[in-house]
């Protein structure tokens, strides 16, 4: 039996929803920071069922959306060189500073392969030994260990034509930056289930401890999400902020130490810039000395176009929860999923794309 089905039980969902309605007598704003939560909240209809007092914000939870212009311009510069790029499909249409994208580059002759995993990218390199292959490594703690494990395998192999462009981001430092920003107004945080599978609960403790923000690690089925919202609401009302693991079937409190170890063996934390959030200390990953030979920046020295501010796009404010996508002047008139202006409209997990698809 697949347990997931049980976590969609409409009757149980209704009962939890009734409790939420009962308690929602004043405004309550909760933020999720995971693209899968974003999609699930819209798709399951939870968004429309929640009482008016409860607002849902999508924070910086989609790796594609938070990838900085400079990083986008860097891989677009690589696409112009004699290199084969391997990427997750999500990056194909992300626009660079001059409106180019991997998709356009591909149409103009660049070699770009969509892969399902970093390991597939390594296979591509093994099968094409005369061609340099660069894997575009985006993603949070969920994805970074898969790239690290792939590099460990690559280090044992013969070939010297496999490289990665590390663009990973770490979630807890970004939440630290958000929680410390006086302009952020969030009453509770829904923590990302799959990132937490790797990190465990400890890195989030500061939310309640230092900032009095209740936070709940949540799964992705409707029942998981409703239940987590109810727990947040209760802690908010009772003024008893804590960090709670409500996804125990997938998240051990200590996380996955094996995956963390592999990640830390290959990568080390560095300061990095997020779209919309700016530079955040310790929130990125760069390759350790032993693995620098795999670094595409070192090897190919790409010269990215200097990022220019994108006039009108308010992704930054959307990612911080300061505005909702329809409050962006470009939303749905100039900026649509077919012709995205900003990355929040590109990825299906982006806040703007989800609003466009499900609210219009």
């Amino acid at each position: 039996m697949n347990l997931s089905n049980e976590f969609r039980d409409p009757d149980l969902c209704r009962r939890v929803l009734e409790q939420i309605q009962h308690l929602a007598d004043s405004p309550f704003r909760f933020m999720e920071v995971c693209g899968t939560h974003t999609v699930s909240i819209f798709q399951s209809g939870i968004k429309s069922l929640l009482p008016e007092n409860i607002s849902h914000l999508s924070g910086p939870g989609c790796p594609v959306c938070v990838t900085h212009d400079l990083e986008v311009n860097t891989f677009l510069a690589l696409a112009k060189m004699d290199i084969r790029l391997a990427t997750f499909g999500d990056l194909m249409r992300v626009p660079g500073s001059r409106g180019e994208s991997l998709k356009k580059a591909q149409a103009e002759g660049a070699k770009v392969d969509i892969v399902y995993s970093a390991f597939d990218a390594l296979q591509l390199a093994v099968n094409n030994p005369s061609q340099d292959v660069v894997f575009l490594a985006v993603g949070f703690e969920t994805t970074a260990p898969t790239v690290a494990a792939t590099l460990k395998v690559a280090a044992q192999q013969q070939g010297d034509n496999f490289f990665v462009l590390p663009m990973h981001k770490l979630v807890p430092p970004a939440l630290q930056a958000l929680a410390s920003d006086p302009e952020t107004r969030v009453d509770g945080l829904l923590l990302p289930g799959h990132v937490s599978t790797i990190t465990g609960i400890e890195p989030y403790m500061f939310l309640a401890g230092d900032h009095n923000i209740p936070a709940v690690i949540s799964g992705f089925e409707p029942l998981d999400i409703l239940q987590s919202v109810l727990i947040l609401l209760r802690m908010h009302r009772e003024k008893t902020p804590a960090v709670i693991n409500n996804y125990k079937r997938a998240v051990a409190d200590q996380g996955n130490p094996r995956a963390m170890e592999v990640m830390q063996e290959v990568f080390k934390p560095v300061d990095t810039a997020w779209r919309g959030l700016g530079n955040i200390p310790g929130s990125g990953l760069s390759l350790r000395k032993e693995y620098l030979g795999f670094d595409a920046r070192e090897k190919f020295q790409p010269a990215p176009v200097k990022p220019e501010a994108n006039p009108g796009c308010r992704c930054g404010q959307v990612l911080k929860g300061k505005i909702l996508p329809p409050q962006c002047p470009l939303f749905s008139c100039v900026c649509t999923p077919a012709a995205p202006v900003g990355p929040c409209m590109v990825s299906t997990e982006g806040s703007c794309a989800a609003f466009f698809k499900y609210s219009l």
Partner: protein
Amino acid sequence: MCLAVPMEVVSIEDNVAHVEVGGVKNSVRLDIVDQMPAVGDFVIVHAGFALRCLDRQEGLETLKLFQDGLGLELVK
């Protein structure tokens, strides 16, 4: 792209598990999974790797608590 899904292990060869859910079949690497799964276990799959064995017992307990009293005692 963060999507991770629970899939059932149907067979294991060295460091690779063959997994399936709803008729969709896949092969996933076991380099970073928290513990070695057995055939019949569900694992959370992301980008070609198994991240963790799903804890069925925890899942069932959470559900039972939901059913009995909406599970709120669970999290205290």
